[in-house]
């Protein structure tokens, strides 16, 4: 009679007896053991951390000032190509600024953009989505139709219109991108909330008297986080890409800011003559975005307890 109930517990208890003296591994160790199984995610994380370090210590790492113009070395090729010098490792751009230094300082802008945009978009999106999912009725309908309208515009076009209204600057571009990205969070959160709400654990939290705010943020929200985290990681890279696109169109960061998209835009007329001026900023964007996406995937796998083994 006791067979099946205890069948799982018995091997557990022996394992427990062996490791009884050892402390239970901390939350972070547990997370790491799952995360590190995914090689791609670890590579992504390493690259991401490298970019963060580069951004943090840009002043130390960069050999030159990002805006200083070396008039004697215009469009100088990278060091390994004929005509390159070790002073400018990745060459210089059309007005003689060191490309490597500009890329290193550009990392700062990329993270700044990514973090601010994701925080604004995810914060407001998750909150609005929770409200829509819990309120139902006309509040829900109103919010969702508004979000549908936002989603009906091509995202870059909508961002362009907003920047055109607010005026071109990096801050305005970030606000515009955040508004464009935020409906995705609203929809994701609301869908997840609607999926969780009828479950018995929510009802039992109600029966013990959890307030509405507690239900929203303590009971339901943690169970909706997995898709939101993935969306956050993916939109971190989307934000960097969109900001680069707006910069490329002249509506984002303004020259001489060493933002990667703006750098691309500044040098597009030299594509055929000096390949390095477009290739390196483009590569920087590509690697950064790819690393973040890989890491986002791994994060989801590691954070979702349903994917864990017991």
């Amino acid at each position, binding site marked *: *009679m*006791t*067979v*099946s*109930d205890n*069948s*799982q*517990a018995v091997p557990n*208890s022996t394992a*427990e007896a062996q490791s009884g003296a050892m402390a*239970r591994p901390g939350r972070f160790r547990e997370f790491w053991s799952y995360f590190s199984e995914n090689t791609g995610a670890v590579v992504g994380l390493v690259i991401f951390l490298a970019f963060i370090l580069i951004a943090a210590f840009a002043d130390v790492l960069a050999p030159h000032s990002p805006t200083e113009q070396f008039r004697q070395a215009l469009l100088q090729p990278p060091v390994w190509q004929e005509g390159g010098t070790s002073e400018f490792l990745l060459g210089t751009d059309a007005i003689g600024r060191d490309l490597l230094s500009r890329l290193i300082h550009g990392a700062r802008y990329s993270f700044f953009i990514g973090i601010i945009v994701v925080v604004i978009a995810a914060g407001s999106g998750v909150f609005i989505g929770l409200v829509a999912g819990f309120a139902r009725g006309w509040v829900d309908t109103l919010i969702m139709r508004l979000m549908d309208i936002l989603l009906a515009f091509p995202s870059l076009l909508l961002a362009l219109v907003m920047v055109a209204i607010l005026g071109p600057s990096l801050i305005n571009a970030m606000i515009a991108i955040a508004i464009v990205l935020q409906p995705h969070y609203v929809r994701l959160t609301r869908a997840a909330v609607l999926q969780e709400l009828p*479950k*018995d*654990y929510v*009802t*039992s*939290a*109600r*029966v*013990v*008297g*959890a*307030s509405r705010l*507690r239900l929203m943020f303590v*009971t339901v929200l*943690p*169970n909706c986080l997995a898709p939101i985290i993935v969306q956050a990681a993916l939109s971190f890279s989307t934000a960097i890409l969109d900001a680069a696109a707006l910069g490329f169109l002249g509506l984002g960061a303004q020259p001489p800011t060493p933002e990667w998209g703006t750098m691309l835009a500044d040098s597009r007329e030299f594509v055929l003559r000096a390949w390095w001026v477009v290739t390196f900023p483009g590569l920087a964007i590509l690697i950064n975005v790819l690393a973040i996406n890989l890491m986002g995937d791994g994060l989801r796998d590691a954070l979702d*307890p*349903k994917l*864990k083994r*017991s």
Partner: protein
Amino acid sequence: MDNTLIEARGLSRHYDVSSGLFGKTATVKALSNASFSLQAGRTLAVVGESGCGKSTLARVVTMIEQPSSGELTLDGHHIRSDEPLTAAQQADLRASVQIVFQDPFGSLNPRQTIGRILEEPVLINRPQVSRAEREQQAREMLAMVGLRPEHYDRYPHMFSGGQRQRIAVARALMLDPRILVLDEPVSALDLSIQSQILNLLVELQERLNLAYLFISHDLSVVRHMADDVMVMYLGRVVEKGAASEVFDTPRHPYTRALLSATPVADPTREQTRIRLEGELPSPLNPPAGCAFNPRCWKAEERCRQSAPELDTQEAHPVACYFPL
């Protein structure tokens, strides 16, 4: 000494259902005119097939939903359909009525450790209890339901169905309730584990003098657990009485049919199974007269005209014109 914990008089719960954008709204009488009482230390079983209003009854008694009409007295508090409870009354009642759900896989928050799940009711309802004390209570409760202290830090997905149901029972008991509503607490479990959980429930009832409102469709489980039985059909109580009487001498044709459908572990016993014709009618459109008349072999013209009432004065009342 009167230790009646639940007293229900004419309890009803109706839902308004709209059919499409321009459709008429219809009323579903999920529960109508139920009257019963439950004393401390006793078990009242509610039986019936799916859709007969058992779970609605559970939701009304645990105050997840307000009754549409009728009176409900829970542990001395009167709940009326027309006046919502004040927050203080609700808090009082929460401590005295708790519920255990059917599916132990859905009733535990997968993001919380067992410790947090158990402590949450105390955290919300008794914020003055210190953290250490709360943990102490949770650990004691774990031991009481037959789990080990090291389970405190684990997540629900690490447990089997039977263990999860123990956790669900433990959570329900954290506020020291006097009434426990058990909404099919074992029907999602394996047969061997069912008996363990049932034994645990019986043991807890004796120790804590709990009143159980035991909802089930499994009559063999009910026979094992119940002191009193209430048979429901399409939102109405059709028969009520002491478990032994209802099982030995069923008076309503529906009860008789239900009992004959329970398998008996005796191959030599003669099969006297009563087969009911047709389906459970839609509660949106119940038949005129007695709700059971289209499927009843004893139905006569009178049953199609008016619905028989349950005479609550009797010891073993039945809502039928032609009781067996």
